[in-house]
Structures are given as C-alpha cells and as structure tokens.
C-alpha cells in the first residue's frame, strides 16, 4: 500500500501523522523544515543568560541587530526574538500578493506553532454550530491531544465558555500581577458578569506543571519569549520528534511541495516537490493529506487544479481572527517589584459577551515581565531619560490584553492563484465587514471599562488594531459541508472533488470563533486520522 503523504509539519500535520503512525499506518511527511538553533545554556535563568553568554546582545538583539526596534517602525509592541528567526524564513518559490490582508507563512519544522503563545481553548457547542459535529464528538480528541502535549487549566468561571475536557493538569504558579487581577475579579465578579458579561479565570496553556514522558515540568527560567530551553513549553516540533521514532515514518525535509498530479480517475497519484537546488522529486500517494496551513494548502490545491485543467478556481470564505492589543497599567501594582523568573505568556484569560449580543470575545491577559523594554519606552510621551525612569516605576504594573474577534465565511474574501507571473503567486483578497469599525470601537470600550473595574487604566492612544492576517488563525477556504458541492470537504475533511485528498489544517473550518485555533486544529487532525484512516 502506498504511504499516506502528509505535507507540512505544523500543529495539524504532526498530530495527524502521530495518530496514523500509532494505528500502524506508514506515513511520509514532506516539509521544507527550516531548523532553528539549539537552546543555549538550557538550565540558566534569563538573567543568568545575560551574565553568562559571551555576547548577550547578539543573542537578544540578533547578530546583525535584527531584533532592535527603532523609532519610526510600524509594528508590534515587542521585538521578534532572533532565536525564532527561522520560523519566518521564506522560500524563494513561494510568492504571495495580498489585498486587505497581511499573511504570515512558515516553512519551519513545526510551522507557525513554533511561535505560538500556547493558548489551548476548545470550541464549545455554540462555536461549533456551523461544523458537522458538536463538542461531544470532538471532546475525546481534545483530551487525547491534551494528554500528548500537556495542558494546564482549572475549573473556574471560564469553564462556562471553555468546556472542561479530560487531560488537564493543575495550573502553573501565578505571577504576582496575574494573581492580583484574579483576586480583584473575584471581588467584583457578579457586577462584571451582570454589566459586561465578563468571565475571568486561569488560561489553558500547553506548558507542563508536572513531568510528561521525557519532558520536565516548567522550572520558571523566565525564557519563554526566546524559546523554552527545557521543552516544558510545547511546540509541534516535539511531536515531530516523536513521529521520527516510528520505523514507519519518513520525514523528507528540504522539499517544497508545488502540486500533485491526478490519474485518469481524478485521484491524486503523485506529489511533485522541489529541493533547494531546483530538482524535482515525485512521491507516489495512496492518500494525500494537506496540512501545510490554510493558505499554503490552498496554493498547492490551486496549482494542482491549474496544472490539470488550466483553470484557476477562487476559494471563497477565507477567515482570520481580528486581534486588538490593549496595553494597560494596573494602578495597584505601581512601584511594586516583579519577578523575572516566572511564566512569561498569558496566565489569565477573559471572555466578554456583552448583554444583548450573541458573540463572545476572548481576551488573553499577559503581564509584562521579561520582554525587552526598548520598544515600549520609546512609545511613552517623554524623553527617553524620563521614560526609563517612569518605566522602572510602572514595569510591574504593565500588562496587555490581546482581544480576539470571531470571523465568519463571506464570499467577498477569497484566495486564488495569479498565473500571470512565474512563479505563480497566491493571491489573497480580504475586505472586513462594513460594520467592523463600529463593532471594534464598541468592544474596545467594553474591555476598557472592564479593565477599569479591575483597577487598570488602558490609555486609548496605545490600543493597537492588528492588521488582518496577523493572528495567523487562517481558515475556511475548503469548508466541511454535508452537501457534496465542489470546493468543499466531507465531515472527515476529505475533498468532495478528489477522492483521496484530505485537508487536516484550518482549510476545512466553516466558522472561526474568537479563540486561538491551534488546539482545535490538533484535535481535528487527530480526529481525521482516527476516524478516516
């Protein structure tokens, strides 16, 4: 039997592959697979790293100062760590043009999951309304993934919107600021719930609070932002490493999959990939599972259709979560010390469902600890001397809410292939809903009021609306559908157009709730491998 060919080693691809391997199937994974640097001084804390590295500025700012954020830049509030540069390293053959969308792509081992912030938020029944299955059907796969990767969480108010599945372990130690936020919430929870529909609780995070397999629990080195050196924080490359221990697994790195070829019956027969030297390689496929990420999978699909028919379809309904970053100052934490040796990503989450609406917005609350301060100090309305001094007094009081908005499939948003140039370019067209600006304004105002009730001030001028594409929660191009219409998939994510073609990434999601999508991608990929293979 020809092996199952899987394209891409991101969160979806590796969990599909591992599940299929455990069922005894033979899996070949094709991947560009850019590789990152090994962890340096793995047992050292962040401040220890600064003391012991021979060139600390080279590590934190990059050998060519690539992570330095100078005045005049337009971007995020933080610098991208040099140790993760490989995640966004491009591949020359891959070209994209985008309108109203700023897409990000990864050709790294582990894909975009190598730079995620570890939030694992299961979809509930309301959020799965457009899916051909409900939470009950997906819950066993959430649990299976949780047991594989290690997820911490607690039964608290958020359980009303974040279903409690099996496999959760106890949360990490809270940092002082996060603990204060939850304490304040407890004192005002009835009011916050009644006025704003606001619920708060512990974040669900893929970081170990106890040893799992060969991985050790988090030791609070404070190095999360630069890449966990102890593997306590999960990234998909860890599951890829597990796949590689199976004799029936073949990992073919350095290959860029361009398209697949079909036989006379319209089944995928061969997959064509190119190595960096331009040489073509062909792989026979029993089944092909595209898990390269929604947009990259769309490109492979479109190129294949074009090669076979000369036609270029439009894949309508592409989605992404709009995100807004809302920095805040917790007035009760002014002048208080902060501990760099703590978990660095968000430890607290909130859900806000304003009364009278049926949409829920998800906020991830990160307190500032060890992020580089130079990108932030320059945004203060002072000279830098005053800014540095002020920052020392407010550092422990700073935090950021990352607000996620839902998105829905709309025909005006689509992905296609521009074949007028060589190489062909993926073309992404996105137009936000006309009502979006007003909608964002209202929601931001609600979150600011919630923060104020928690003792936090969120200055209006620092609110940053991230461009569409920045959240990297792409979905919806080939949705699951009960009807076998063209350019859709079955409930098991098998293409309705090509019998032995599956999509294991976000391509098949018919809706996009206001939550990090990665956990659901992993659970769904596991479900496909378990039930369809």
């Amino acid at each position, binding site marked *: 039997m020809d092996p199952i060919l899987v394209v891409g080693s991101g969160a979806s691809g590796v969990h599909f592959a591992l599940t299929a391997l455990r069922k005894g199937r033979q899996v070949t994974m094709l991947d560009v697979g850019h590789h990152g640097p090994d962890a340096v001084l793995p047992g050292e804390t962040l*401040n220890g790293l*600064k*003391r012991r590295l021979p060139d*600390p*500025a080279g*590590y*934190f*700012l990059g050998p*060519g*100062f690539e992570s*330095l*954020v*100078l*005045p*005049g830049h337009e971007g995020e509030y933080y610098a991208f760590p040099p140790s993760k540069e490989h995640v966004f390293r491009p591949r020359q053959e891959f070209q994209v043009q985008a309108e109203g969308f700023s897409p990000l792509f990864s050709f790294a081992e582990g894909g975009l999951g190598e730079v995620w912030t570890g939030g694992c938020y299961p979809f509930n029944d309301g959020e799965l309304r457009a899916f051909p299955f409900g939470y009950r059907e997906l819950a066993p796969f959430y649990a299976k993934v949780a047991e594989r990767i290690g997820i911490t969480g607690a039964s608290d108010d958020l359980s009303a919107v974040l279903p409690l599945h099996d496999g959760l372990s106890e949360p990490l130690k809270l940092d002082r600021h996060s603990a204060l936020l939850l304490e304040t919430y407890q004192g005002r929870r009835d009011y916050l719930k009644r006025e704003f529909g606001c619920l708060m609780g512990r974040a669900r995070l893929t970081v170990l609070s106890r040893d799992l397999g060969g991985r050790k629990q988090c030791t609070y080195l404070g190095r999360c932002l630069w890449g966990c050196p102890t593997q306590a924080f999960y990234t998909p490359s860890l599951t890829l490493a597990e796949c590689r221990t199976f004799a029936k697994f073949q990992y073919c790195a350095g290959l860029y999959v361009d398209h697949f070829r079909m036989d006379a019956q319209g089944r995928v027969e061969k997959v064509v990939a190119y190595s960096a030297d331009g040489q073509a390689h062909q792989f026979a496929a029993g089944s092909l599972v595209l898990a390269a990420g929604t947009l990259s999978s769309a490109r492979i699909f479109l190129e294949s259709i074009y090669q076979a028919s000369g036609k270029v379809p439009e894949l309508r309904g592409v989605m992404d979560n709009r995100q807004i970053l809302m920095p805040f100052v917790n*007035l*009760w*934490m*002014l*002048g*208080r*010390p*902060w501990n*760099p040796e703590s978990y660095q990503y968000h430890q607290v989450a909130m859900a806000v469902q304003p009364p009278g609406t049926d949409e829920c917005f998800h906020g991830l609350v990160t307190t500032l600890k060890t992020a*580089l*301060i*130079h990108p932030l*100090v*320059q945004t203060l*309305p*002072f*000279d*830098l*001397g*005053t800014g*540095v*001094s*002020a*920052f*020392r*007094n*407010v*550092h*422990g009081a700073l935090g950021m809410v990352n607000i996620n908005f839902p998105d829905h499939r709309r025909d005006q948003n689509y992905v296609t292939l521009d074949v007028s140039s060589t190489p062909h370019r993926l073309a992404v067209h996105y137009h936000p809903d006309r009502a979006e600006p007003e909608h964002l304004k209202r929601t931001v105002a609600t979150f600011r009021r919630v923060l104020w009730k928690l003792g936090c001030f969120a200055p209006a001028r620092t609110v940053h609306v991230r461009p569409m594409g920045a959240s990297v929660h792409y979905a919806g191009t080939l949705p699951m559908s009960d009807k076998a219409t063209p350019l859709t998939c079955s409930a098991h994510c098998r293409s309705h157009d090509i019998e032995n073609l599956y999509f294991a990434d976000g391509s098949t999601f018919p809706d996009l709730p206001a939550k990090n999508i990665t956990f659901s991608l992993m659970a769904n990929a596991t479900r496909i491998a378990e039930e369809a293979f």
Partner: protein
Amino acid sequence: MNRAELERECRTYARYLIGQTPSEYVVGKYVDFHGQSKAAAGLAGPAGLDRFDQFLVGVSARGPLWARLADAYASQLRKDSAVRKKLIVTLALLECTPPSSEVLDRVDAGGPLGAVVRLALGGMLYALTLVVSVAIFTPVRLAMAVRLGSRPATRRER
C-alpha cells in the same frame, strides 16, 4: 564619524539614561552597530544625516544634560531623529547586559505612592526640559532652514 566619537556618544547616552558609565562590551557593540547593521544606514556619519540631525547628535554627545535637552526636543518635534535612534540603540544594549540590565530592572522603594510621586516629578522635570530645549533648538532649526533655502539641498535634505 570615527570610533572615538561613537564611543563618546555611547558613554554620554548611558550616563544620561541610567546614570552609569557603560561596560566596554556595550561601547564595543554600539560601535559595531554603526558599522554592521542595516538599521544603522545613515546614522554612522554626517553624509547620511540632515544638518539639524547632525547638530542634535553633536550637541547631545557633549554630556548627559545636553543629551537630555536634545532628546526632550526630539521627543516631541523630531521623533524619528538620529539622536533618538542612537539613544534607543544604547538602551537596547544596556538592557541586554549586566550590570546595566539590573539597574533598569530595579524598582525604587516607596511602593505605589512613591511611584506616583516620582512619576509626577519626572513629568514636571520633562515639561521644564522641553520648554528649555524648544527655546534653545528652535532658533537653530529655523536658522538652518533659512540657510538651506539659499543653497541647493543635499540628497538627504530633499
């Protein structure tokens, strides 16, 4: 701009930002930045800067007080100026390297009340510095603009 001038800049800026002389490692990296980094294009020497930028950089390197005045002026009226970029480079290097990183992480005593008092005093000092800097640098900038009008502009000034 030669190495000695860059080293002097770095030492002055560090004293202005954290009140301490930087380590030789920080000074060396500051010089490296001007020689290596793509981001430094235009910051390393007069050829890449317009005349007022050159002037602000030159003045700011004289001492911490001048650095504060130049920075206060730039913070409102020249936000992307070379002097501000150079100060950010210095700050970034200081925060990556002990012992300066420890100075930046240190929280002053006094709790929330002390922090509020210090923030208020800092704000007042900044306002005063800004007024003085505007009084000093605005005439210079205007004079340079007038002189510029009477001769062909350099590529950068265009």
